[in-house]
């Protein structure tokens, strides 16, 4: 029961939950973050301040608290719906909380990146008869991506490790799984989880470095 291959197998299996949470969060929070960034730069003041207040609340409170409120809130506040029962419900709730939280952080990085592009780039596009969306997608976006890659990389690495917080609403992620062995007198599974994270982050670091190099062909 407690032999090494079995434990490794169970750790790996639970780490897949961390990986799925990571991938889904990234997939949805990046585009959502861009939308929130546009909202926070809106010339329509009520929308701008609504969005900025929302971002302040999400960035100003612990992710752990947000996980608990999003998981328990709908049922206890009689919002008319609750998460599906069992493991799938807990996972969906965690994913939603992570997406909202990370979208807010990304939105501020995007906003900073977009606002840092010189006005002359927009004006050059305008006098060449481009539409607003042509200017954004053909002129501005790649320059923004190049500039925000380092801070986005930071957030992505933080996200890998934050996935462990999903245990607060009983998602059996890798550290929770390893923790179960401490009561049986085993400490090495905890050390082993560290290796999983290190390897994952190592691969991401290489990937981000590769992307940065890809975009180093121009200066902006």
């Amino acid at each position: 029961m407690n032999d090494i291959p079995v434990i490794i197998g169970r750790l790996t299996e639970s780490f897949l939950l961390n990986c799925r949470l990571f991938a889904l969060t990234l997939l949805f929070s990046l585009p959502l973050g861009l939308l929130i960034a546009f909202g926070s730069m809106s010339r329509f003041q009520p929308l701008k301040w609504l969005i900025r207040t929302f971002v302040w609340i999400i960035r100003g409170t612990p992710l752990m608290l947000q996980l608990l409120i999003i998981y328990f809130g709908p049922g206890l506040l009689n919002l008319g719906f609750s998460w599906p029962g069992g493991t799938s419900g807990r996972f969906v709730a965690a994913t939603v909380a992570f997406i909202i939280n990370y979208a807010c952080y990304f939105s501020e990085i995007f906003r900073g990146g977009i606002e840092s592009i010189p006005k002359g780039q927009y004006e050059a596009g305008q006098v060449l008869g481009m539409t607003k969306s042509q200017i954004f997608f053909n002129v501005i976006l790649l320059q923004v991506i190049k500039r925000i890659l380092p801070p986005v990389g930071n957030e992505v690495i933080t996200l890998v490790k934050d996935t462990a917080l999903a245990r607060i609403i009983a998602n059996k992620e890798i550290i929770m799984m390893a923790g179960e062995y401490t009561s049986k007198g085993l400490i090495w599974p905890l050390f082993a989880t560290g290796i999983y994270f290190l390897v994952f982050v190592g691969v991401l670091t290489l990937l981000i470095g590769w992307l940065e190099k890809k975009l180093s062909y121009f200066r902006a």
Partner: protein
Amino acid sequence: MPVLEVKDIEKSFGTLQVLKKIDFSLEKGETLAIIGSSGSGKTTLLRCLNFLERPDRGKIIVNHEVIFDAADPVTRRDSELRKKRLHFGLVFQNFNLFPQYTVLKNVTLALELLARERPDYKQRKKAILEEIREKGRNLLAQVGLSDKLDYYPHMISGGQQQRVAIARALALEPDILCFDEPTSALDPELTGEVLKVIRNLAERHTTMIIVTHEMDFARDVADRVIFMDGGVIVEQGSPEEVFGNPREERTKQFLARYKGN
């Protein structure tokens, strides 16, 4: 027959009036130089012509068509202005090339995007894009940059970047090409190559408006000179008149400062 008529343009930023009753016209093939000290409103005037600023009052008429009338809300709409601004081209003081594109792509990008609106674009895409690239290569040859097509902006000098910017503006075949202090951001040894390209365009009778601090160049190349001060046109006439025999006291003072150098 004037290609451009500017009638009573006025522009304020808050309480500061930057342009007052600007009134002039430009004949086809003419080169107009606008001179004046910093803050005299000359750059704002160019930006109004290119709709980077919206005039508060007045009309802009190109080839007898009213393309902007501050009193007519229809002509102020963004969607209207986008196509109409193509009557004008603008070369910026700071070039504003797109850093992520090659020299050739900088020149062709706007044409490629415009071509997507053509009805035959889908069927003839390859041929159309090749035509556009050919045009870009020709324009870059015209400004002497045939050997830099695949370079990125950061790899070439400021003077070369400004020549790319000129080719980029020419690609859309504007009726009137505007220059906003095209050599002010350049080291002195690089201004010559840019001025040579502009001189070349003047000899080909490109209709141009040049805001400049290069007095000798303005005197040499322009068919007509406008001197602006405090948001108004103080004096306009041939270079001989304005530089050789200015009527207004303010023009004399301004030119005296330049002769000192």
